């Protein structure tokens, strides 16, 4: 029983990271119907920036964290402007390829700048543990869960209660109509990318104490975030997080109870099953298509 709870908590913590990456996919997908295969690499880059600010320049953890988020938000806007905006409106396949190319580029450049070693960020909560009876929970895992909940609440408020959030939802529904209604669609998309990169950075920094930061971390975790996004229905913000948590728990349970090898495959088996039985995911919307 104790093992089970232990596995559950670490699965949820890992799942929150998947959920945060998936959240980045979903934000961009909702606003522009672009699937950003470089999302995991944005996370990796955010982690490296945080390492630079905290580990190398010796800034306070929170200031370094904020600095990394701000830098990556700007970087997200830049990536959108340079790579995505010129091909917006073209078939999805070209856009997917462009973001795969972007991911390649970011991974290699990060490897060149920061080397290929595993890097670690010292956090205020990387040491302690919470003891509840005989249950031992590490603070770094709890911090991921807490931060994810806060971020989700903030994003929900932003999308449902602010002008900009409403504008984003409108332009995701119909870009042209939103443009006619006076919404500056280009700027909105740019802001969406900034938010998405910022969310990815949060994931990267929170992840740093659990699995170290290295230049391939984005690829590995980014691929795991796809099952999360699909499970949640690709267009739904709560869906992404729930999907992420489910995938994280499934992975960690498979690693504990099933024979070796299942851990890495289980998320994809779940993904294929979901796609077979319920392609629109758990929270997906049914969309009618016009010919």
């Amino acid at each position, binding site marked *: 029983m104790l093992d089970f709870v232990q596995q559950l908590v670490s699965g949820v913590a890992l799942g929150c990271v998947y959920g945060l990456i998936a959240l980045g996919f979903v934000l961009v*997908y909702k606003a522009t*119907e672009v*699937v950003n295969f470089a999302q995991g690499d944005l996370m990796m880059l955010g982690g490296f920036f945080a390492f630079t600010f905290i580990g190398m320049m010796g800034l306070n953890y929170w200031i370094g964290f904020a600095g990394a988020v701000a830098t990556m938000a700007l970087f997200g806007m830049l990536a959108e402007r340079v*790579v995505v905006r*010129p*091909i*917006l*409106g*073209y*078939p*999805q*396949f*070209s*856009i*997917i*390829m*462009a973001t*795969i*190319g*972007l*991911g*390649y*580029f*970011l*991974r*290699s*450049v990060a*490897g*060149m700048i920061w080397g*290929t070693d595993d890097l670690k960020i010292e956090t205020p909560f990387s040491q302690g543990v919470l003891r509840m009876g005989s249950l031992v929970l590490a603070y770094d895992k709890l911090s991921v869960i807490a931060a994810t909940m806060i971020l989700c609440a903030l994003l929900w408020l932003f999308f449902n209660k602010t002008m900009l959030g409403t504008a984003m939802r409108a332009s995701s*529904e*119909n*870009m*042209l*109509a939103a443009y006619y209604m006076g919404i500056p669609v280009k700027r909105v998309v740019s802001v969406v990318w900034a938010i998405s990169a910022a969310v990815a950075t949060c994931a990267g920094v929170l992840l740093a104490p659990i699995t170290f930061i290295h*230049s391939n971390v984005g690829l590995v975790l980014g*691929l795991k975030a*796809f*099952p999360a996004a*699909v499970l949640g229905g*690709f267009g739904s913000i709560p869906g992404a997080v729930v999907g992420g948590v489910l995938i994280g728990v499934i992975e960690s349970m498979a690693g504990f109870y099933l024979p070796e*090898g299942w851990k*890495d*495959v289980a998320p*994809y*088996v779940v*993904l*294929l099953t979901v*796609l*077979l039985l319920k*392609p629109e995911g758990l929270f997906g919307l049914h*969309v*009618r*298509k*016009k*010919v």
Partner: protein
Amino acid sequence: MRFLFKTDYEDDIKLFPHSGYIISYGLLLALLLIAPYVLSSYLMSQLVFVCIYATVGVALLILTGFTGQASLGHAAFLAIGAYTAAYLQKYNVPFPVYFLAAGASTGIIGAMVGFPALRLTGIYLVIATISFALIVEEILARWESVTNGNEGMRVKTLSLLGVTVPRDSPTFYYLCLAVLVLTIVGTLNLLRSPTGRAFVAIRDSETAARSMGVNVALYKVKSFAISATITGFAGVLFAHKLSFISPEMFTLQLSIEFIIVILIGGTFSLHGAVLGAIFIVMIDPFLTYLKDDMPGIIAGIAATFGASPATAGNIQSNAAAFASLNGLKGAIYGIIIVLFVLFEPLGLYGRWLKIKLFFQLFPLYKRATFKRQKIYVKSERNR
């Protein structure tokens, strides 16, 4: 400029629209046939890889280019073909038999992937094929009784009708070339048949195809199966060329490379697969060449512009240090992909067509001829 008058459907679907085609492709084939006697052994080896990659490229074009079903899982099909060959070879099965068996087994698995893919479009299909490839990779690493796990399998030298064909012999090259040419001719015939027309109809609009009476599910599965079969054949040749296979050769990276082949070549014509294969296979030696020679050239240029020998030497060593940085190749790959998507969406073959048209229409060429339509409204995207 030549005008082709088409008076009936037979004219429209001719394999060779006019005699110029026969002459130019005959010439190309002749050049390829004498290549082993002219080129160095290194270039021959690269040429064999071009043939194999182009075969996979053609397979991917049938699925992605002509049926509109994106796949990032073709490395898995290649792996299944290669492993089937290597496994059957252990029991002394002759080459023609395991060649066909590899194609058949890959085709069956391809059809099995096709069934769940029926309900999926666009991004979901891409993710599903990625998952399929990752699962296959894991199975190859774990099913040790058949695949020998991570230690990999040795592939014996090919023997065809009692004659051994070493992997760097001209005969092996001819075999790969024959497979490629047969694949291309077969695909051309497929594409002008009702099946091929149905594929294209599904690509252009699934709903419209269905309302014209095309059985979309059947043709999608067919497309998957045909594409996988051809990739399986290529897998056998790939295994023989490398003479050793292990799971880490068939990663997502390889699937992405195959997609890059058709993306860079052009996704609307079979020429694209060949041009893309040449590009992707030749970029490695080219980058190595740049890495070895570029620093010297840069220093030479700096010296001619009046830099002192010390500065030039400095520049040379800096450039050399930059060129030998780890991961530079990946960065260049990434930039190439992005640049092609942004500025040359029709690929190398598209560029060739543009240049050809420019000279055919000389002062009257318009850029807008090749402009693609942008769609901004979600409901109007029918895929």
